[in-house]
């Protein structure tokens, strides 16, 4: 270790996580898979700040390292194969390098990260960066793999031929990181090439050949292990079978292995809420603390096991190199929705929860594809819809009912899942088509790197980053919604005298709760939105459930339970089935008729009732525009589909 890498520059420090203004800025440029991010992580440790470039869905990572008492800002640019952009993400790189990106400082120095096993191709990018006439340094990665695969490269020769400093770096093993830090610290003294690389294709070929010759480059042989693994994993029969097995396992782990962990989180927050009940004597304060704040935070934290598991699996599959193989196998099917193979994983994850699914769209290289996938993802049947479906299907048909040999309840459940998946693909296709109407169609190409063993460090970093970002950004929004909702359901407050005067037995907690609910602000909202939902057959109490479920779907079950004042709020089916209209033209009629239940089911298929999804969409796209569009289109879709289904079922069953 040299001076540059020891001392206070590894973790923490006064500048941790903040970006120092006035410090020299270095940008890492390189193609995807070149090892840019592992160099960035090794340079800046855990002091990176992630976010978005102003106004676009392109992720931005900025970090700081300290050398010789001075801070140096490092920015990890999105991966690109060339500086002539063909996607919004690459446009960012080009604009930033040319200093045309408003609100973002142009870098002082550039480090081009190139993969030694793809040197021939990488020199094209180097030639384009050199023509920008900024201080340039080259970081060559994967030289170890080049040698094991029988190749050779003389770093000193490459440095002489290019006329700029060249450093050999293996980010994962931290080889060359101290040297690269020192190089960046001395960026003002970097050598500048005398001549620009040529632009004419033939001359550029000759230039490339001469550089390769001067650096005694011998290309790597194709990786034997990768060839053997690919022969199985990409085989038309075995490859497809293994792919399905991998996806089933993936789904199983996210869906079921996370459940006990989520149970633990729930138990913990339940215990916290219990403490509040015991130690806070003021009922309304206990309610606010226990139900709203602890309940709200708990509702978010409960997703953490799923998110961490999903990112563990995704970064494993990605790091090993399987993700692009899976995308290769699925590309044809996804192209039907105008997407590419890599979008499959995001949609698949959304079966568990749209939040990790939307976060998984980061693996898509094109911003348009990311948006299209995000717009479709919330339609995949997530685990939060499950309790609602179970409750409603249970009220709709009896467990004994069969269609042929199949249980009707199971068939309905399958249809709901199927409807969600098909709608998600359709929505993605429409968004993609609308976005492509006046723009270039992004061509599809995908590098298939050899299989590699990822480091534990890189996997843990990905998990940590995603979980931290999720907790911080979504926690605030969800907590705010639950507090507002709690206030609406519990205010205005009523004095004991007022309750007694209205004929409520103040010793009966259930009666008090239902009186408070009946006269709460939420009830007024429930009645106020009656004209909207009346065509779907919802009464004001169902409306409260629907409005409450806008924060999170699973609250529908609990809210209805409270409203029906059932003995067991977790299983209010019996009380609910018997629930009748309290007033209006339908007074005395049953609320939960077959058309109403069917309408509710379809409403839940389509409506975006999840503040976590809305906030993560805002976080990932960097604007409120996309969550607003998603919420709007899904609400319209939900209402109209529910209305149609209500009508059809009413006709079929002869009820009104």
């Amino acid at each position, binding site marked *: 270790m040299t001076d540059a890498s020891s001392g206070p520059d590894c973790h923490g420090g006064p500048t941790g996580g903040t970006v120092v203004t006035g410090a020299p800025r270095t940008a890492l440029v390189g193609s995807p898979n070149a090892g840019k991010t592992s160099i960035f992580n090794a340079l800046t440790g855990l002091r990176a700040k992630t976010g978005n470039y102003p106004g676009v869905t392109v992720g931005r990572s900025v970090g700081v390292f300290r050398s010789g008492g001075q801070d140096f800002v490092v920015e990890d640019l999105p991966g690109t194969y060339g500086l002539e952009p063909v996607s919004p993400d690459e446009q960012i790189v080009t604009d930033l390098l040319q200093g045309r990106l408003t609100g973002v400082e142009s870098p002082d120095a550039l480090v081009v990260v190139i993969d030694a096993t793809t040197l021939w191709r990488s020199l094209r990018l180097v030639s384009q960066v050199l023509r920008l006439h900024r201080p340039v340094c080259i970081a060559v990665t994967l030289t170890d793999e080049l040698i094991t695969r029988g190749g050779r490269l003389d770093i000193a020769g490459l440095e002489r031929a290019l006329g700029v400093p060249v450093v050999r770096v293996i980010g994962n093993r931290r080889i060359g990181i101290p040297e690269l830090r020192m190089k960046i610290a001395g960026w003002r003294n970097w050598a500048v090439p005398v001549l620009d690389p040529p632009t004419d294709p033939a001359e550029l070929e000759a230039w490339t050949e001469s550089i390769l010759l001067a650096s005694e480059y011998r290309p790597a042989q194709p990786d034997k292990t990768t060839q053997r693994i690919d022969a199985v994993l990409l085989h038309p029969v075995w490859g497809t079978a293994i792919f399905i097995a991998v996806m089933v396992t993936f789904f199983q782990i996210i869906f079921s292995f996370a459940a006990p962990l989520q149970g633990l989180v729930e138990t913990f927050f339940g215990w916290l809420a219990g403490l509040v009940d015991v130690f806070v004597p003021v009922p309304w304060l206990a309610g606010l603390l226990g139900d709203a704040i602890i309940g709200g935070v708990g509702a978010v934290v409960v997703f953490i096991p799923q998110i961490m598991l999903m990112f563990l699996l995704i970064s494993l599959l990605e790091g090993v190199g399987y993700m692009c193989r899976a995308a290769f196998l699925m590309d044809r099917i996804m*192209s039907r929705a105008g997407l590419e193979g890599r979008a499959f994983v995001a949609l698949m994850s959304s079966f568990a929860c749209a939040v990790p699914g939307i976060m998984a769209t980061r693996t898509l290289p094109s911003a348009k594809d990311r948006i299209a996938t995000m717009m479709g993802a919330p339609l995949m049947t997530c685990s939060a819809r499950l309790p609602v479906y179970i409750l409603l299907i249970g009220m709709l048909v009896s467990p004994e009912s069969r269609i042929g040999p199949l249980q009707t309840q199971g068939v309905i459940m399958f249809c709901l899942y199927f409807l969600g998946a098909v709608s998600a693909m359709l929505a993605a296709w429409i968004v993609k088509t609308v976005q492509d109407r006046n723009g270039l169609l992004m*061509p599809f190409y995908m590098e298939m790197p050899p299989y590699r063993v990822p480091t534990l460090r890189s996997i843990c970093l990905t998990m940590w980053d995603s979980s931290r970002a999720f907790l911080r950004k979504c926690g605030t929004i969800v907590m705010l919604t639950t507090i507002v909702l709690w206030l609406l359901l519990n205010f205005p407050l009523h004095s004991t005298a007022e309750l007694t005067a209205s004929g409520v037995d103040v010793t009966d907690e259930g009666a008090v709760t239902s009186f408070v609910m009946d006269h709460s602000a939420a009830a007024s909202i429930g009645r106020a939105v009656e004209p909207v939902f009346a065509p779907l057959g919802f009464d004001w109490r169902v409306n409260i459930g629907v409005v409450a479920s806008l924060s999170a779907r699973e609250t529908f079950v609990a809210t209805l339970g409270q409203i029906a004042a059932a003995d067991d709020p977790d299983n209010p089916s019996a009380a609910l089935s018997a629930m009748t209209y309290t007033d209006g033209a339908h007074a005395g009629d049953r609320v939960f008729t077959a058309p109403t239940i069917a309408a509710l089911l379809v409403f839940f298929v389509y409506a975006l009732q999840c503040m976590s999804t809305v906030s993560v969409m805002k976080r990932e796209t960097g604007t409120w525009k996309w969550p607003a569009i998603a919420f709007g289109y899904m609400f319209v879709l939900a209402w109209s589909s529910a209305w149609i289904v209500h009508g059809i079922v009413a006709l079929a069953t002869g009820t009104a």
Partner: protein
Amino acid sequence: MRVSSRVDGSPAATTPPLSNPCGLEALPIGVPARIIDVGDHGTAPYAGRLGDLGFVAGARIELLRRAPLGDPAVYRVRGYDICLRLAQARGIRVTTTL
């Protein structure tokens, strides 16, 4: 150099000899070829991008495998493996006369 090789199930195997030059999408698996030109694909930046990826006139290229549903396909060019859709491969002209 062999001009054609037996490839199971591939449509190209049933229609030898290969017309030379041909589009990249018609190249049989395992036959070494050389790129003649990458076409313009109607849009300038994309032709440039194919060049950045190593698809330049004169480069050696080989089709490694097609996806189970026929599209896309993996090619080896400039010593690394890259996957292209048929739509992109169509504009690239290759010859097996090296």
